[in-house]
Protein backbone atom coordinates (compact mmCIF):
# COMPACT_ATOMS: atom_id res chain seq x y z
CA UNK A 1 0.00 0.00 0.00
CA UNK A 2 1.04 3.59 -0.45
CA UNK A 3 -0.03 6.91 1.03
CA UNK A 4 0.89 10.55 0.63
CA UNK A 5 2.48 12.31 3.59
CA UNK A 6 2.87 15.99 4.25
CA UNK A 7 5.73 18.10 3.01
CA UNK A 8 5.42 21.86 2.74
CA UNK A 9 6.63 22.49 -0.79
CA UNK A 10 6.39 19.07 -2.33
CA UNK A 11 4.82 15.66 -1.76
CA UNK A 12 5.94 12.68 0.29
CA UNK A 13 5.17 9.09 -0.67
CA UNK A 14 5.15 6.37 2.02
CA UNK A 15 5.01 2.76 0.83
CA UNK A 16 4.68 -0.53 2.70
CA UNK A 17 4.98 -4.10 1.41
CA UNK A 18 5.98 -7.60 2.44
CA UNK A 19 8.99 -7.81 0.15
CA UNK A 20 11.44 -5.48 -1.52
CA UNK A 21 10.01 -6.43 -4.92
CA UNK A 22 6.52 -5.63 -3.66
CA UNK A 23 7.76 -2.38 -2.21
CA UNK A 24 9.25 -1.27 -5.52
CA UNK A 25 6.12 -2.21 -7.46
CA UNK A 26 3.92 -0.37 -4.99
CA UNK A 27 6.20 2.68 -5.12
CA UNK A 28 5.82 2.68 -8.90
CA UNK A 29 2.03 2.72 -8.59
CA UNK A 30 2.31 5.37 -5.89
CA UNK A 31 4.34 7.58 -8.22
CA UNK A 32 1.77 7.34 -11.02
CA UNK A 33 -1.04 7.97 -8.54
CA UNK A 34 0.52 11.39 -7.95
CA UNK A 35 0.67 12.12 -11.68
CA UNK A 36 -2.85 11.13 -12.73
CA UNK A 37 -6.24 11.34 -11.03
CA UNK A 38 -7.62 8.00 -12.23
CA UNK A 39 -4.87 5.41 -12.00
CA UNK A 40 -7.54 2.67 -12.09
CA UNK A 41 -8.39 3.83 -15.63
CA UNK A 42 -4.91 2.96 -16.91
CA UNK A 43 -5.10 -0.20 -19.04
CA UNK A 44 -2.31 -2.73 -19.51
CA UNK A 45 -1.97 -2.49 -23.27
CA UNK A 46 1.72 -1.73 -23.65
CA UNK A 47 4.75 -3.42 -22.16
CA UNK A 48 8.15 -2.07 -21.35
CA UNK A 49 11.14 -3.87 -19.86
CA UNK A 50 13.19 -1.76 -17.47
CA UNK A 51 16.52 -2.78 -16.02
CA UNK A 52 18.14 -0.98 -13.08
CA UNK A 53 21.65 -1.83 -11.93
CA UNK A 54 22.55 -1.61 -8.26
CA UNK A 55 22.05 -3.37 -4.96
CA UNK A 56 21.63 -0.76 -2.26
CA UNK A 57 17.85 -0.61 -1.64
CA UNK A 58 17.58 3.19 -1.32
CA UNK A 59 19.44 3.88 -4.55
CA UNK A 60 17.55 1.06 -6.22
CA UNK A 61 14.22 2.65 -5.26
CA UNK A 62 15.47 6.07 -6.33
CA UNK A 63 16.79 4.91 -9.72
CA UNK A 64 13.68 2.84 -10.38
CA UNK A 65 11.26 5.71 -9.75
CA UNK A 66 13.51 7.99 -11.71
CA UNK A 67 13.45 5.69 -14.73
CA UNK A 68 9.64 5.48 -14.59
CA UNK A 69 9.42 9.27 -14.43
CA UNK A 70 11.81 9.66 -17.35
CA UNK A 71 9.83 7.18 -19.46
CA UNK A 72 6.65 9.07 -18.65
CA UNK A 73 8.17 12.45 -19.43
CA UNK A 74 9.63 11.44 -22.78
CA UNK A 75 7.03 8.95 -24.03
CA UNK A 76 3.96 9.81 -21.97
CA UNK A 77 3.68 6.21 -20.74
CA UNK A 78 1.71 5.50 -17.56
CA UNK A 79 2.22 2.14 -15.88
CA UNK A 80 -0.18 0.34 -13.56
CA UNK A 81 1.24 -3.20 -13.31
CA UNK A 82 4.73 -4.36 -12.59
CA UNK A 83 6.35 -7.81 -12.53
CA UNK A 84 9.64 -7.35 -10.73
CA UNK A 85 12.61 -9.56 -10.22
CA UNK A 86 15.65 -8.78 -8.13
CA UNK A 87 18.97 -10.46 -8.75
CA UNK A 88 22.52 -10.05 -7.49
CA UNK A 89 23.22 -6.99 -9.63
CA UNK A 90 19.93 -5.19 -9.87
CA UNK A 91 16.32 -5.17 -10.85
CA UNK A 92 14.42 -6.26 -13.94
CA UNK A 93 10.85 -5.09 -14.29
CA UNK A 94 8.19 -5.76 -16.86
CA UNK A 95 5.97 -2.68 -16.74
CA UNK A 96 2.49 -2.62 -18.24
CA UNK A 97 0.34 0.38 -18.97
CA UNK A 98 -0.59 2.79 -21.73
CA UNK A 99 0.05 6.28 -23.07
CA UNK A 100 -1.53 9.08 -21.08
CA UNK A 101 -4.86 10.44 -22.28
CA UNK A 102 -5.70 13.61 -20.42
CA UNK A 103 -9.48 13.31 -20.67
CA UNK A 104 -9.58 9.74 -19.36
CA UNK A 105 -6.73 9.67 -16.87
CA UNK A 106 -6.94 13.25 -15.61
CA UNK A 107 -3.85 15.14 -14.55
CA UNK A 108 -2.95 15.65 -10.92
CA UNK A 109 0.70 16.75 -10.77
CA UNK A 110 3.74 17.21 -12.87
CA UNK A 111 6.38 15.43 -10.80
CA UNK A 112 9.63 17.22 -11.59
CA UNK A 113 11.98 14.82 -9.87
CA UNK A 114 12.59 12.20 -7.20
CA UNK A 115 14.65 13.67 -4.34
CA UNK A 116 17.16 12.19 -1.91
CA UNK A 117 15.87 14.31 0.97
CA UNK A 118 14.55 11.97 3.66
CA UNK A 119 14.81 9.00 1.29
CA UNK A 120 14.59 5.76 3.22
CA UNK A 121 14.01 2.06 2.70
CA UNK A 122 13.71 0.01 5.90
CA UNK A 123 13.09 -3.57 6.73
CA UNK A 124 11.48 -4.46 10.05
CA UNK A 125 11.15 -8.11 11.13
CA UNK A 126 8.61 -7.47 13.86
CA UNK A 127 5.36 -7.60 11.94
CA UNK A 128 2.65 -9.69 13.61
CA UNK A 129 1.93 -11.87 10.57
CA UNK A 130 5.47 -13.18 10.62
CA UNK A 131 6.48 -11.60 7.32
CA UNK A 132 9.21 -9.05 6.89
CA UNK A 133 7.65 -5.68 6.41
CA UNK A 134 9.31 -3.17 4.16
CA UNK A 135 8.82 0.57 4.45
CA UNK A 136 9.95 3.28 2.05
CA UNK A 137 9.66 7.05 2.14
CA UNK A 138 10.52 9.37 -0.68
CA UNK A 139 9.81 13.04 -1.34
CA UNK A 140 9.11 14.09 -4.91
CA UNK A 141 9.62 17.58 -6.28
CA UNK A 142 6.44 19.21 -7.58
Amino acid sequence: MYEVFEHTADLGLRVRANSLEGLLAEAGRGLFSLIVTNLEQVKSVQERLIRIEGGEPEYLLFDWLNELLYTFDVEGLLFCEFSLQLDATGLTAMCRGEAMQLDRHGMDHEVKAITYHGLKVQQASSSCDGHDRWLAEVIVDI
Partner: protein
Amino acid sequence: MAKQSFHGPLQRVNDCCWRIPKSYKPGMRVDGLIYASEQMIEQIKGDQAPEQVANVAFLPGIQHASLAMPDIHWGYGFCIGGVCATDPDEGGVISPGGVGYDINCGVRLVTSNLSYQDVKPHLAELVDQLFRHVPTGVGRGGKYKFNKQELRQLMQQGPAYLQDRGLTTAEDLEHTEGRGCLDGAISDFVSDRAIERGSGQCGTLGSGNHFLEVQVVDAIFDEVAAAAMGLQKDMVCVMIHSGSRGLGYQVCDDALKQLRGVPERYGIELPDRQLACAPINSPEGERYLGAMCAAANYAWCNRQLLMAQARDVFAQVFGRSWHELQMNLIYDVAHNIAKLEMHQIGGRDRRVWVHRKGATRAFPPHHVELPEAYQSIGQPVLIPGDMGRASWVLAGQVGSMEQTFGTACHGAGRRMSRTQAVKQAKGRRIDQELAARGVIARARSWKGLAEEQPDAYKDVNTVVDVVHRANLASKVARMRPIGVIKG
Protein backbone atom coordinates in the same frame (compact mmCIF):
# COMPACT_ATOMS: atom_id res chain seq x y z
CA MET B 1 10.58 12.13 6.99
CA ALA B 2 7.36 13.54 8.39
CA LYS B 3 6.82 17.18 9.19
CA GLN B 4 8.54 18.16 12.46
CA SER B 5 8.97 21.45 14.25
CA PHE B 6 12.36 23.07 14.76
CA HIS B 7 13.46 23.21 18.40
CA GLY B 8 16.98 24.60 17.97
CA PRO B 9 18.13 28.08 18.97
CA LEU B 10 16.90 31.16 17.10
CA GLN B 11 18.43 34.34 18.52
CA ARG B 12 17.01 37.73 17.64
CA VAL B 13 19.56 39.90 15.78
CA ASN B 14 17.11 42.73 15.07
CA ASP B 15 13.44 42.98 14.17
CA CYS B 16 14.10 41.54 10.68
CA CYS B 17 16.79 38.96 11.35
CA TRP B 18 17.30 35.82 13.47
CA ARG B 19 20.44 33.79 14.09
CA ILE B 20 21.05 30.05 14.41
CA PRO B 21 24.51 30.13 16.03
CA LYS B 22 27.12 27.83 14.53
CA SER B 23 27.44 26.21 17.94
CA TYR B 24 24.03 24.62 17.31
CA LYS B 25 25.51 21.63 15.50
CA PRO B 26 29.09 20.44 15.27
CA GLY B 27 30.04 20.77 11.61
CA MET B 28 28.44 24.16 10.99
CA ARG B 29 31.13 26.46 9.60
CA VAL B 30 29.13 29.69 9.88
CA ASP B 31 25.95 30.93 11.56
CA GLY B 32 22.55 30.66 9.96
CA LEU B 33 20.67 33.94 9.46
CA ILE B 34 16.94 34.02 8.74
CA TYR B 35 15.30 37.26 7.61
CA ALA B 36 11.81 37.38 9.09
CA SER B 37 9.52 39.34 11.39
CA GLU B 38 8.78 38.23 14.93
CA GLN B 39 5.35 37.07 13.85
CA MET B 40 6.71 35.04 10.93
CA ILE B 41 9.42 33.33 12.91
CA GLU B 42 6.88 31.36 14.96
CA GLN B 43 5.46 29.88 11.80
CA ILE B 44 8.89 29.25 10.33
CA LYS B 45 9.72 27.06 13.34
CA GLY B 46 6.77 24.84 12.38
CA ASP B 47 8.78 22.68 9.98
CA GLN B 48 12.33 21.63 9.13
CA ALA B 49 13.30 24.73 7.15
CA PRO B 50 15.50 26.22 9.95
CA GLU B 51 17.23 22.84 10.29
CA GLN B 52 17.99 23.02 6.58
CA VAL B 53 19.51 26.51 7.06
CA ALA B 54 21.81 24.96 9.68
CA ASN B 55 22.64 22.03 7.38
CA VAL B 56 23.74 24.32 4.54
CA ALA B 57 26.24 25.90 6.97
CA PHE B 58 28.19 22.60 6.74
CA LEU B 59 29.21 23.27 3.11
CA PRO B 60 32.97 23.80 2.65
CA GLY B 61 34.01 27.30 1.62
CA ILE B 62 30.75 28.93 2.75
CA GLN B 63 31.15 32.65 3.45
CA HIS B 64 29.52 34.97 5.99
CA ALA B 65 26.44 32.87 6.85
CA SER B 66 23.89 30.39 5.58
CA LEU B 67 21.05 32.78 4.74
CA ALA B 68 17.31 32.50 4.35
CA MET B 69 14.84 35.02 3.03
CA PRO B 70 11.45 35.71 4.68
CA ASP B 71 9.61 33.39 2.27
CA ILE B 72 11.61 30.48 3.73
CA HIS B 73 9.93 27.09 3.83
CA TRP B 74 10.85 23.43 3.97
CA GLY B 75 12.43 22.22 0.75
CA TYR B 76 14.70 19.26 0.02
CA GLY B 77 18.33 19.73 1.05
CA PHE B 78 18.39 23.52 0.95
CA CYS B 79 15.35 25.28 2.32
CA ILE B 80 13.39 27.29 -0.20
CA GLY B 81 14.45 30.90 0.23
CA GLY B 82 18.03 29.78 0.94
CA VAL B 83 21.17 31.67 -0.08
CA CYS B 84 24.76 30.50 0.28
CA ALA B 85 28.00 31.87 -1.18
CA THR B 86 31.07 29.66 -1.52
CA ASP B 87 34.61 30.74 -2.35
CA PRO B 88 36.50 28.48 -4.78
CA ASP B 89 39.79 29.70 -3.32
CA GLU B 90 38.83 28.35 0.07
CA GLY B 91 37.84 24.89 -1.11
CA GLY B 92 34.32 26.13 -1.82
CA VAL B 93 31.81 23.68 -3.23
CA ILE B 94 28.98 23.80 -5.71
CA SER B 95 25.82 21.95 -4.69
CA PRO B 96 23.14 21.08 -7.26
CA GLY B 97 20.65 20.95 -4.37
CA GLY B 98 21.40 24.63 -3.76
CA VAL B 99 20.10 25.40 -7.24
CA GLY B 100 17.29 22.86 -7.31
CA TYR B 101 15.83 20.62 -9.98
CA ASP B 102 14.20 23.50 -11.77
CA ILE B 103 17.41 25.25 -12.77
CA ASN B 104 16.76 28.95 -13.42
CA CYS B 105 13.16 28.85 -12.47
CA GLY B 106 12.34 32.53 -12.60
CA VAL B 107 9.93 35.31 -13.35
CA ARG B 108 9.46 37.97 -16.00
CA LEU B 109 7.12 40.92 -16.17
CA VAL B 110 5.81 42.56 -19.33
CA THR B 111 4.10 45.96 -19.60
CA SER B 112 1.30 47.06 -21.94
CA ASN B 113 -0.45 50.30 -22.80
CA LEU B 114 -3.80 48.76 -21.86
CA SER B 115 -5.66 49.82 -18.75
CA TYR B 116 -7.92 47.60 -16.67
CA GLN B 117 -10.95 49.26 -18.30
CA ASP B 118 -9.60 48.37 -21.76
CA VAL B 119 -9.12 44.73 -20.84
CA LYS B 120 -12.12 44.06 -18.59
CA PRO B 121 -14.69 43.47 -21.38
CA HIS B 122 -12.28 41.04 -23.12
CA LEU B 123 -10.82 39.37 -20.04
CA ALA B 124 -12.60 36.01 -20.30
CA GLU B 125 -11.69 35.71 -23.98
CA LEU B 126 -8.11 36.78 -23.28
CA VAL B 127 -7.62 34.19 -20.53
CA ASP B 128 -9.27 31.46 -22.61
CA GLN B 129 -7.05 32.25 -25.58
CA LEU B 130 -3.95 32.26 -23.39
CA PHE B 131 -5.01 28.90 -21.95
CA ARG B 132 -5.58 27.55 -25.47
CA HIS B 133 -2.35 28.79 -27.00
CA VAL B 134 0.22 28.63 -24.22
CA PRO B 135 0.98 24.96 -23.43
CA THR B 136 0.45 24.18 -19.74
CA GLY B 137 0.49 21.06 -17.61
CA VAL B 138 1.82 17.63 -18.46
CA GLY B 139 2.10 16.05 -21.86
CA ARG B 140 1.52 19.10 -24.05
CA GLY B 141 4.48 19.84 -26.24
CA GLY B 142 5.44 23.30 -27.40
CA LYS B 143 4.96 24.73 -30.88
CA TYR B 144 8.64 25.55 -31.21
CA LYS B 145 10.76 22.68 -32.43
CA PHE B 146 14.52 22.42 -32.03
CA ASN B 147 16.67 19.52 -33.11
CA LYS B 148 19.50 18.29 -30.94
CA GLN B 149 22.11 20.51 -32.54
CA GLU B 150 19.88 23.58 -32.37
CA LEU B 151 19.15 22.90 -28.73
CA ARG B 152 22.86 22.72 -27.96
CA GLN B 153 23.35 26.11 -29.64
CA LEU B 154 20.36 27.53 -27.80
CA MET B 155 21.87 26.39 -24.51
CA GLN B 156 25.19 28.06 -25.36
CA GLN B 157 23.66 31.39 -26.30
CA GLY B 158 20.39 31.80 -24.40
CA PRO B 159 17.63 33.97 -25.94
CA ALA B 160 20.15 35.70 -28.25
CA TYR B 161 19.91 32.47 -30.26
CA LEU B 162 16.23 33.24 -30.91
CA GLN B 163 16.99 36.63 -32.46
CA ASP B 164 17.42 35.14 -35.94
CA ARG B 165 13.96 33.62 -35.71
CA GLY B 166 12.47 37.01 -34.79
CA LEU B 167 11.52 35.78 -31.33
CA THR B 168 13.84 38.03 -29.29
CA THR B 169 14.66 41.71 -29.59
CA ALA B 170 17.77 43.57 -28.45
CA GLU B 171 15.62 45.28 -25.79
CA ASP B 172 14.41 41.91 -24.47
CA LEU B 173 18.02 40.79 -24.04
CA GLU B 174 19.00 44.05 -22.35
CA HIS B 175 16.21 43.54 -19.81
CA THR B 176 17.03 39.92 -18.92
CA GLU B 177 19.29 39.12 -15.97
CA GLY B 178 22.78 38.56 -17.34
CA ARG B 179 21.35 39.11 -20.85
CA GLY B 180 19.91 35.61 -20.54
CA CYS B 181 23.26 33.92 -20.95
CA LEU B 182 25.67 32.45 -18.43
CA ASP B 183 29.16 32.37 -19.92
CA GLY B 184 30.19 29.06 -18.44
CA ALA B 185 27.62 27.01 -20.35
CA ILE B 186 29.01 23.78 -21.82
CA SER B 187 26.09 22.19 -23.60
CA ASP B 188 28.15 19.06 -24.34
CA PHE B 189 27.89 18.33 -20.60
CA VAL B 190 24.09 18.13 -20.92
CA SER B 191 23.12 14.49 -21.34
CA ASP B 192 21.11 13.09 -24.24
CA ARG B 193 18.42 12.16 -21.75
CA ALA B 194 18.12 15.79 -20.67
CA ILE B 195 17.94 16.91 -24.28
CA GLU B 196 15.28 14.32 -24.98
CA ARG B 197 13.18 15.62 -22.08
CA GLY B 198 13.70 19.24 -23.06
CA SER B 199 13.44 19.10 -26.84
CA GLY B 200 9.67 19.55 -27.06
CA GLN B 201 9.24 21.64 -23.94
CA CYS B 202 10.91 24.97 -24.72
CA GLY B 203 8.04 27.45 -24.66
CA THR B 204 5.82 25.46 -22.26
CA LEU B 205 4.71 26.58 -18.81
CA GLY B 206 4.65 23.31 -16.88
CA SER B 207 2.73 22.78 -13.71
CA GLY B 208 2.97 23.13 -9.91
CA ASN B 209 3.42 26.76 -8.92
CA HIS B 210 4.23 27.89 -12.46
CA PHE B 211 1.78 30.32 -14.02
CA LEU B 212 1.10 33.02 -16.53
CA GLU B 213 -0.90 35.89 -15.01
CA VAL B 214 -2.60 38.96 -16.32
CA GLN B 215 -2.23 41.60 -13.61
CA VAL B 216 -3.21 45.20 -12.94
CA VAL B 217 -0.94 47.69 -11.20
CA ASP B 218 -3.00 48.72 -8.19
CA ALA B 219 -0.52 50.79 -6.19
CA ILE B 220 2.71 52.66 -6.88
CA PHE B 221 5.12 53.18 -3.97
CA ASP B 222 8.05 54.78 -5.81
CA GLU B 223 7.03 57.03 -8.71
CA VAL B 224 10.57 57.51 -10.04
CA ALA B 225 11.44 53.82 -10.09
CA ALA B 226 8.03 52.89 -11.51
CA ALA B 227 8.45 55.42 -14.32
CA ALA B 228 11.91 54.05 -15.14
CA MET B 229 10.37 50.59 -15.45
CA GLY B 230 7.44 51.86 -17.52
CA LEU B 231 4.86 51.02 -14.84
CA GLN B 232 1.86 53.16 -13.98
CA LYS B 233 -1.28 52.73 -11.93
CA ASP B 234 -4.08 50.77 -13.62
CA MET B 235 -1.73 49.35 -16.27
CA VAL B 236 -2.29 45.76 -17.34
CA CYS B 237 0.86 43.59 -17.18
CA VAL B 238 1.76 39.98 -17.81
CA MET B 239 3.81 37.97 -15.33
CA ILE B 240 5.35 34.64 -16.30
CA HIS B 241 6.76 32.10 -13.85
CA SER B 242 8.49 29.01 -15.24
CA GLY B 243 11.91 27.39 -15.50
CA SER B 244 14.00 24.89 -17.42
CA ARG B 245 11.34 22.17 -17.64
CA GLY B 246 12.37 18.51 -18.00
CA LEU B 247 15.80 19.47 -19.32
CA GLY B 248 16.78 21.24 -16.12
CA TYR B 249 15.31 18.53 -13.89
CA GLN B 250 17.37 15.94 -15.73
CA VAL B 251 20.59 18.00 -15.52
CA CYS B 252 20.18 18.21 -11.73
CA ASP B 253 19.34 14.54 -11.55
CA ASP B 254 22.34 13.51 -13.66
CA ALA B 255 24.60 15.62 -11.44
CA LEU B 256 23.28 14.12 -8.22
CA LYS B 257 23.88 10.66 -9.62
CA GLN B 258 27.41 11.57 -10.66
CA LEU B 259 28.01 12.99 -7.19
CA ARG B 260 27.19 9.73 -5.39
CA GLY B 261 30.21 9.02 -3.23
CA VAL B 262 31.99 12.20 -4.33
CA PRO B 263 31.63 14.23 -1.09
CA GLU B 264 33.12 11.29 0.82
CA ARG B 265 36.00 11.13 -1.65
CA TYR B 266 36.81 14.78 -0.96
CA GLY B 267 36.37 14.30 2.79
CA ILE B 268 33.18 16.39 2.94
CA GLU B 269 30.72 15.45 5.67
CA LEU B 270 27.09 16.27 4.98
CA PRO B 271 23.99 16.00 7.16
CA ASP B 272 21.65 15.38 4.18
CA ARG B 273 22.30 13.45 0.96
CA GLN B 274 20.37 16.04 -1.02
CA LEU B 275 23.17 18.53 -0.21
CA ALA B 276 25.59 16.45 -2.31
CA CYS B 277 28.31 18.70 -3.67
CA ALA B 278 31.77 18.82 -5.19
CA PRO B 279 34.59 21.35 -4.97
CA ILE B 280 34.10 24.07 -7.58
CA ASN B 281 37.64 23.38 -8.74
CA SER B 282 37.17 19.68 -9.42
CA PRO B 283 36.23 17.71 -12.55
CA GLU B 284 32.85 16.85 -10.98
CA GLY B 285 32.16 20.45 -9.98
CA GLU B 286 33.16 21.82 -13.35
CA ARG B 287 31.00 19.32 -15.15
CA TYR B 288 27.89 20.28 -13.16
CA LEU B 289 28.58 24.00 -13.56
CA GLY B 290 28.89 23.71 -17.34
CA ALA B 291 25.62 21.78 -17.59
CA MET B 292 23.83 23.98 -15.04
CA CYS B 293 24.73 27.15 -16.95
CA ALA B 294 23.47 25.53 -20.18
CA ALA B 295 20.16 24.60 -18.52
CA ALA B 296 19.86 28.15 -17.14
CA ASN B 297 20.22 29.53 -20.66
CA TYR B 298 17.52 27.12 -21.85
CA ALA B 299 15.21 28.42 -19.09
CA TRP B 300 15.66 32.01 -20.28
CA CYS B 301 14.69 30.84 -23.76
CA ASN B 302 11.65 29.07 -22.31
CA ARG B 303 10.40 32.25 -20.65
CA GLN B 304 11.24 34.24 -23.80
CA LEU B 305 9.09 31.88 -25.89
CA LEU B 306 6.28 31.95 -23.32
CA MET B 307 6.35 35.74 -23.56
CA ALA B 308 6.33 35.58 -27.38
CA GLN B 309 3.16 33.46 -27.23
CA ALA B 310 1.51 35.81 -24.73
CA ARG B 311 2.34 38.75 -27.00
CA ASP B 312 0.77 36.93 -29.95
CA VAL B 313 -2.42 36.22 -28.01
CA PHE B 314 -2.75 39.84 -26.88
CA ALA B 315 -2.19 41.01 -30.45
CA GLN B 316 -4.88 38.65 -31.69
CA VAL B 317 -7.43 39.59 -28.99
CA PHE B 318 -6.86 43.36 -29.18
CA GLY B 319 -6.20 43.57 -32.91
CA ARG B 320 -2.89 45.40 -32.63
CA SER B 321 0.71 44.21 -32.78
CA TRP B 322 2.56 43.68 -29.50
CA HIS B 323 4.78 46.62 -30.43
CA GLU B 324 1.70 48.84 -30.68
CA LEU B 325 0.45 47.42 -27.38
CA GLN B 326 3.88 48.32 -25.91
CA MET B 327 4.32 44.88 -24.45
CA ASN B 328 7.85 45.56 -23.30
CA LEU B 329 9.86 43.31 -21.03
CA ILE B 330 10.53 45.12 -17.74
CA TYR B 331 12.92 42.47 -16.52
CA ASP B 332 13.50 38.75 -16.16
CA VAL B 333 14.97 37.33 -12.95
CA ALA B 334 16.26 33.89 -12.05
CA HIS B 335 15.43 32.57 -8.59
CA ASN B 336 16.91 29.04 -8.67
CA ILE B 337 20.51 29.46 -9.75
CA ALA B 338 24.17 29.63 -8.81
CA LYS B 339 26.21 32.53 -10.20
CA LEU B 340 29.81 33.63 -10.00
CA GLU B 341 29.69 37.16 -8.60
CA MET B 342 31.99 39.72 -7.04
CA HIS B 343 31.18 40.55 -3.42
CA GLN B 344 32.99 42.35 -0.66
CA ILE B 345 33.80 39.90 2.10
CA GLY B 346 36.04 40.76 5.03
CA GLY B 347 36.93 44.10 3.44
CA ARG B 348 38.08 42.78 0.06
CA ASP B 349 36.48 41.89 -3.26
CA ARG B 350 36.11 38.18 -3.82
CA ARG B 351 34.55 36.11 -6.54
CA VAL B 352 32.12 33.65 -4.99
CA TRP B 353 29.48 31.27 -6.28
CA VAL B 354 26.17 32.52 -4.93
CA HIS B 355 23.56 29.75 -4.69
CA ARG B 356 20.02 31.14 -4.74
CA LYS B 357 17.44 28.45 -4.04
CA GLY B 358 14.16 30.31 -4.23
CA ALA B 359 15.77 33.72 -3.85
CA THR B 360 16.14 36.63 -6.26
CA ARG B 361 19.18 38.70 -7.14
CA ALA B 362 18.55 42.29 -6.00
CA PHE B 363 21.50 44.40 -7.14
CA PRO B 364 21.47 48.03 -5.98
CA PRO B 365 21.69 51.22 -8.10
CA HIS B 366 24.93 51.75 -10.05
CA HIS B 367 25.82 48.06 -10.13
CA VAL B 368 27.87 47.33 -13.24
CA GLU B 369 25.60 44.45 -14.31
CA LEU B 370 22.44 46.55 -14.52
CA PRO B 371 21.17 47.93 -17.83
CA GLU B 372 21.28 51.68 -18.41
CA ALA B 373 17.56 52.13 -17.67
CA TYR B 374 17.93 50.81 -14.12
CA GLN B 375 21.32 52.25 -13.19
CA SER B 376 19.83 54.96 -10.99
CA ILE B 377 16.99 52.96 -9.40
CA GLY B 378 18.39 49.45 -8.83
CA GLN B 379 17.49 46.11 -10.34
CA PRO B 380 13.80 45.25 -10.72
CA VAL B 381 13.05 42.42 -8.30
CA LEU B 382 9.90 40.52 -9.27
CA ILE B 383 7.98 38.86 -6.45
CA PRO B 384 4.97 36.77 -7.43
CA GLY B 385 2.46 36.36 -4.62
CA ASP B 386 -0.51 34.04 -4.70
CA MET B 387 -3.19 34.07 -7.38
CA GLY B 388 -5.77 35.83 -5.21
CA ARG B 389 -3.90 38.66 -3.54
CA ALA B 390 -0.92 40.46 -5.01
CA SER B 391 2.48 40.38 -6.66
CA TRP B 392 5.20 42.98 -6.23
CA VAL B 393 7.92 44.82 -8.07
CA LEU B 394 10.79 45.95 -5.86
CA ALA B 395 14.11 47.61 -6.66
CA GLY B 396 17.39 46.22 -5.32
CA GLN B 397 19.02 48.29 -2.58
CA VAL B 398 22.49 48.63 -1.17
CA GLY B 399 21.61 46.64 1.98
CA SER B 400 21.47 43.50 -0.15
CA MET B 401 25.17 43.81 -1.02
CA GLU B 402 26.04 44.38 2.63
CA GLN B 403 23.96 41.56 4.07
CA THR B 404 22.76 38.91 1.60
CA PHE B 405 25.16 38.73 -1.36
CA GLY B 406 22.83 40.97 -3.36
CA THR B 407 19.71 38.91 -2.74
CA ALA B 408 16.05 39.32 -1.74
CA CYS B 409 13.04 37.02 -1.46
CA HIS B 410 11.36 35.25 -4.42
CA GLY B 411 7.69 34.90 -3.50
CA ALA B 412 5.16 34.54 -0.73
CA GLY B 413 6.37 31.15 0.44
CA ARG B 414 4.06 28.29 1.25
CA ARG B 415 2.19 28.28 4.52
CA MET B 416 0.31 25.03 4.02
CA SER B 417 1.53 21.71 2.73
CA ARG B 418 -0.02 20.54 -0.53
CA THR B 419 -1.96 17.80 1.25
CA GLN B 420 -3.34 20.29 3.79
CA ALA B 421 -4.36 22.65 1.01
CA VAL B 422 -6.22 19.90 -0.84
CA LYS B 423 -7.99 18.85 2.36
CA GLN B 424 -9.05 22.43 2.93
CA ALA B 425 -10.32 22.78 -0.62
CA LYS B 426 -12.49 19.66 -0.49
CA GLY B 427 -15.95 20.37 -1.90
CA ARG B 428 -14.92 23.86 -2.98
CA ARG B 429 -14.54 25.32 -6.45
CA ILE B 430 -11.41 27.44 -6.17
CA ASP B 431 -11.93 28.81 -9.69
CA GLN B 432 -15.38 30.10 -8.76
CA GLU B 433 -14.10 31.62 -5.53
CA LEU B 434 -11.40 33.40 -7.51
CA ALA B 435 -13.97 34.58 -10.05
CA ALA B 436 -15.95 36.15 -7.18
CA ARG B 437 -12.76 38.08 -6.33
CA GLY B 438 -12.43 39.25 -9.93
CA VAL B 439 -9.82 36.71 -11.03
CA ILE B 440 -10.45 34.38 -13.95
CA ALA B 441 -8.41 31.20 -13.46
CA ARG B 442 -7.95 28.31 -15.87
CA ALA B 443 -6.09 25.16 -14.84
CA ARG B 444 -5.74 21.62 -16.15
CA SER B 445 -5.98 20.03 -12.73
CA TRP B 446 -8.45 20.64 -9.87
CA LYS B 447 -5.84 19.43 -7.43
CA GLY B 448 -3.26 21.78 -8.88
CA LEU B 449 -5.57 24.71 -8.30
CA ALA B 450 -6.46 23.51 -4.80
CA GLU B 451 -2.79 23.18 -3.84
CA GLU B 452 -2.05 26.64 -5.18
CA GLN B 453 -5.09 28.38 -3.64
CA PRO B 454 -4.32 31.76 -2.04
CA ASP B 455 -4.70 30.43 1.53
CA ALA B 456 -1.89 27.94 0.94
CA TYR B 457 0.57 30.83 0.83
CA LYS B 458 1.86 33.32 3.35
CA ASP B 459 0.73 36.87 2.80
CA VAL B 460 3.24 38.19 0.27
CA ASN B 461 2.79 41.69 1.68
CA THR B 462 4.37 40.65 5.01
CA VAL B 463 7.27 38.99 3.19
CA VAL B 464 7.90 42.10 1.12
CA ASP B 465 7.68 44.28 4.23
CA VAL B 466 10.63 42.47 5.81
CA VAL B 467 12.71 42.76 2.64
CA HIS B 468 11.88 46.47 2.44
CA ARG B 469 12.64 47.15 6.11
CA ALA B 470 15.91 45.22 5.94
CA ASN B 471 16.86 47.45 2.99
CA LEU B 472 17.46 44.48 0.68
CA ALA B 473 15.02 45.85 -1.90
CA SER B 474 12.46 48.67 -1.77
CA LYS B 475 8.80 48.72 -2.78
CA VAL B 476 8.04 50.06 -6.25
CA ALA B 477 4.62 48.74 -7.29
CA ARG B 478 2.00 46.21 -6.30
CA MET B 479 -0.11 44.32 -8.83
CA ARG B 480 -3.29 42.33 -8.34
CA PRO B 481 -4.11 39.35 -10.56
CA ILE B 482 -7.13 39.40 -12.89
CA GLY B 483 -6.40 36.35 -15.04
CA VAL B 484 -4.38 33.19 -14.35
CA ILE B 485 -3.45 30.16 -16.41
CA LYS B 486 -1.82 27.16 -14.78
CA GLY B 487 -0.94 23.53 -15.39
